[in-house]
């Protein structure tokens, strides 16, 4: 069943059809949110909130853009607002044990270096300006086209390209210290 048909069914009182929409887009929403928050539990909570908010305002969805575009916008707004709230409350928590490191035979030193490298990448992505971060996450995590990202962020395709390039340059600058020349 097409999205529009499912939405119509949901609006006419068939709540069960909404589950199909949730199942169809939950991974996309989760991946986008985790790209912004970098924490599984928070990402699951926000993904849940995104689908609840979307359900509650489904009647306001005009259908001018794709349902997925609308959903991405809700996900981005929810994630950014969550980050701001968290920052305000001063609840920045060290996300120890976040990375699911596979059981491989690695030296303690190599493992430590890898962990700190990942930690620095996370910090570097988090340190990007909001627009650069969003363009970067949607391009890299969701592998969306420039046109799709432009539609979601409501900017031009050229602006998306610029934001992604700037994000990459900024990340390289921030992470340059990780690989010091001997």
């Amino acid at each position, binding site marked *: 069943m097409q999205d529009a048909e499912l939405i119509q069914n949901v609006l006419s009182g068939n*709540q*069960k059809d*909404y*589950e199909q929409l*949730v*199942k169809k887009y*939950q*991974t996309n929403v*989760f*991946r986008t949110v*985790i*790209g912004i928050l*970098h924490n*599984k539990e928070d*990402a*699951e909570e926000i*993904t*849940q909130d995104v*689908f*609840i908010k979307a*359900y509650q305002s489904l009647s306001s969805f005009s259908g001018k853009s794709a349902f997925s575009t609308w959903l991405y916008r809700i996900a981005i707004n929810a994630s950014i607002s969550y980050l701001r709230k968290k920052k305000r409350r001063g609840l920045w928590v060290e996300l120890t044990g976040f*990375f*699911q490191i596979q059981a491989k035979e690695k030296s303690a030193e190599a493992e430590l270096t890898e962990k700190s*490298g*990942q930690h620095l*990448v*996370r910090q*570097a*992505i988090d340190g990007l300006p909001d627009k650069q971060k969003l363009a970067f996450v949607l391009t*890299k*995590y969701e592998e969306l086209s420039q046109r799709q990202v432009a539609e979601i962020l409501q900017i031009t395709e050229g602006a998306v390209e610029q934001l992604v390039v700037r994000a*990459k340059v900024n*990340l*390289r600058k921030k*992470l*340059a210290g*990780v*690989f010091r*020349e001997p």
Partner: protein
Amino acid sequence: MNKRNDVDLLVEQFIVEEKSIEHNPFLSTRVMAVLDNKKQQNVKRLSPVLRAAIVSFGFAAAVFVGFAAGNLYNTEDKKAEVVLVNDDAMEHFAFYKDIENE
């Protein structure tokens, strides 16, 4: 150049690892459960209104039953008793006659 590639590789590796994190398989079930709960809460929110309506209806019914019961009271057959109770009234000799005839 190598340094730049290393940084890009590190970022790519980080992204691949984050992308491999899977969400709870019951995420959609959880969403639907929350929506169901919210729906039930909305029904519960109506209950004070319903409760007020039920109380008002009960009060109106009690008043109606009171009036109806009051109207059932018939004074026509009670004249003799009223005469007996009211000391100012004339003696009702027919009543004594009836007693004597018993």
